[in-house]
């Protein structure tokens, strides 16, 4: 149906231009193929990565924390800047304690965020809590920014009775309906087409969806579907790629051959920004611009934040098997986003050694206390195990649950009922 309509339009156009097929000359008339808007050429040559310069990397701060071009200063007020820095450093404190707790066998799994603090906080600060987040799994900074509390984080990692996820997911699979942060899903890249779908549903509502993903995830077929659907359906979504150089052990140069992930954006007809992911102000500006465009034009934007995963992929990984200590050290010292931002704040008299010392002590204390509290809390009530497979509990499950209720009541001295919430 659609095809025949297009063909009719083409024919009509030919005749309106007073052309007959006999005289139709490809040299004098521009091409009218429905599949591309382009010019004719008589030169046969490849178009490839050599045909364009790679996308430049947008920066605001230099390595010493100085603003390079004053006109790019987002002029954030000091409260915002301080919160950004505190959340970045809190993330480090949190990671250290939870990583070690996994090593001690107190939680089963963990993933750190080292090296990507600026990408999380810079992007989160440019959005409001009303905007919807689809994360991959390494975006805890975004949650911290939105006000996800330390107890909430710890309760999830422990899967205790206070965990909103009722202990049903592995650690780091956070989610918060109030904060519009969609619960993390383990299989890779499922979040990308879903984010396009959510943005489609939120069109015209003055809200944007941000979808985080890694350069490895961008290899999944879902990534292609997501970008193409978002473009063709005009979805107000920001696809935010954290290009951190490694997908577990696979380095970026084995993951793709083009100009990163950003290089793909124009191919999908998506406006694209490539940004220094270790520069929180650059990430902030890029995300703010992306949001404005996505909402006013109702179109997707692709942001590629160039960064480096300083930590191991997860507690199941040992990255010394595939990269050198020198390489990691270079990034964690010379290119550290937290240090760079701290220098910026100090340059502007917004931070100093004394404040640093005081804040880190406070952060550590808060994290440890939330951690200890979470460890002590009881497990979810046993009846939860029958719930939530279906919205309405099927009769056979109701029967099982009632029978267990009677059984546990009758023989409660044989069950560790005190370990479970009432």
């Amino acid at each position, binding site marked *: 149906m659609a095809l025949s309509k297009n063909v009719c339009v083409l024919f009509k156009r030919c005749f309106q231009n007073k052309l007959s097929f006999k005289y139709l000359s490809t040299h004098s008339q521009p091409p009218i193929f429905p599949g591309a808007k382009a010019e004719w050429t008589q030169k046969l040559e490849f178009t490839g990565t050599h045909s364009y310069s790679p996308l430049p990397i947008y920066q605001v701060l230099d390595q010493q924390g100085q603003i390079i071009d004053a006109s790019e200063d987002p002029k954030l007020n000091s409260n915002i800047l301080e919160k950004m820095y505190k959340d970045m450093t809190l993330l480090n404190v949190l990671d250290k304690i939870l990583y070690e707790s996994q090593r001690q066998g107190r939680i089963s799994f963990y993933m750190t965020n080292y090296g990507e603090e600026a990408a999380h906080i810079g992007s989160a600060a440019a959005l409001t809590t009303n905007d919807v987040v689809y994360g991959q799994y390494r975006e805890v900074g975004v949650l911290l920014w939105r006000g996800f509390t330390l107890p909430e984080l710890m309760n999830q990692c422990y899967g205790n009775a206070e965990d909103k996820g009722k202990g049903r997911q*592995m650690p780091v699979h956070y989610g918060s309906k109030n904060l519009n942060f969609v619960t993390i*899903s383990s299989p890779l890249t499922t979040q990308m087409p879903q984010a396009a779908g959510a943005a489609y549903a939120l069109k015209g509502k003055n809200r944007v969806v941000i979808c985080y993903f890694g350069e490895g995830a961008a*290899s999944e077929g879902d990534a292609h579907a997501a970008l193409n659907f978002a473009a063709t359906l005009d979805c107000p979504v920001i696809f935010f790629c954290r290009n951190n150089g490694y997908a577990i052990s696979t380095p970026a140069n084995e993951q793709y051959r083009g100009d990163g992930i950003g290089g793909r954006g124009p191919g999908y007809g998506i406006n694209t920004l490539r940004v220094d992911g270790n520069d929180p102000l650059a990430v902030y500006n890029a995300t703010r611009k992306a949001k404005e465009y996505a909402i006013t034009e109702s179109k997707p934007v692709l942001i590629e934040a160039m960064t480096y995963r300083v930590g191991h992929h997860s507690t199941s990984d040992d990255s010394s098997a595939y990269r050198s200590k020198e390489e990691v050290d270079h990034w964690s010292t010379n290119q550290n986003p937290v240090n760079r931002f701290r220098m910026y704040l100090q340059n502007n008299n917004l931070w100093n050694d004394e404040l640093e010392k005081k804040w880190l002590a406070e952060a550590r204390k808060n994290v440890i206390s939330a951690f200890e509290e979470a460890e002590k809390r009881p497990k979810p009530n046993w009846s939860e195990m029958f719930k939530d497979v279906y919205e309405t509990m099927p009769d056979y499950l109701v029967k099982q649950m009632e029978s267990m209720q009677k059984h546990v009541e009758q023989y409660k001295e044989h069950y560790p009922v005190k370990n479970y919430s009432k």
Partner: protein
Amino acid sequence: MATLSSTPTMLNLASKASKLLSKRLFSTTKVATAKQMTVRDALNSALDEEMEKDERVFILGEEVALYDGAYKVTRGLWKKYGDKRVIDTPITEMGFAGVAVGAAMAGLKPVCEFMTFNFAMQAIDQIINSAGKTFYMSAGRVNVPIVFRGPNGAAAGVGAQHSQCYGAWYAHCPGLKVISPYTSEDARGLLKAAIRDPDPVVFLENELLYGVQYPISDEVLSKDFVLPIGKAKIERPGKHITIVAHSKAVETSLEAAKELAGKGIEVEVINLRSLRPLDFNTITASVVKTNHLISVEQGWPTCGIGAEILARIMESEAFYHLDQPAIRVTGVDTPMPYTKSLEGAALPQVADVVKAAKKLMKVK
């Protein structure tokens, strides 16, 4: 009575195969001298030998080369065979499964590793619609000799999306062969057979068994050793009840059999090894002898392997030999809980099998 009968049973088992024995009968010289091999090494040696034997065999998947595989099954193979034959791919299951299908169509013999079978869901169209059906649709002109392998079934502490058995899913599909090995012998003999097989084979390993050692004979260590696809193994003979299981559920069944032997119930444990083709003759022969049947599997009950076996028994002459309705012992009909205690409860345990057996035999 129980103590008296349990000793000879355990000794008898020692010559069979059980990792438990090496722990419990540490003084038995026979076990101490028997060669042991982990399932991981069994798979690794099978891959190595088949790559050495046939230049067309190559491995592809995520992290299989430099990193030796997420579960180290391909350890050392990249060093030995190089980039040409052990290939790290980008993270696109549909992509590298499709590349494997194409390479097989063009005459190579790919071994396609999925980091786990949970991620093979991304590639299911290539596995079923392309690998599984091309031979038929090309009227027998294009065969697709691939092995899709990786860990399957419940792992530990990884929650609903990373812990499930796909045995029944693949066994459902004509065109595929489906293998679910238990011991190191199974893993070695069947992986070698799978690689040599002209058809696509789905090879379902178990993460929790990778590090387990099993006794292994010189015959099994021979480079020429292969096991027939589609043939089950009687792991333990018995006359009262037939238990049919695959993969880790065989372990559960053998432990239950040992416990039941102490109560005078002799269980015959059949390790299916292949889920498709299913060795129905071995099952019926056993049922005709024992008159009682239990199936044990970690997968869900609905449309599961046990459901298939019980249905086939119902349709066969063997049905008339049953003294009691057969019983399925399966994983619980729920997404896998993350909580450790519930995760255990969601999987068939020795006590569940013992209970089913006692119910059949009408004993307390």
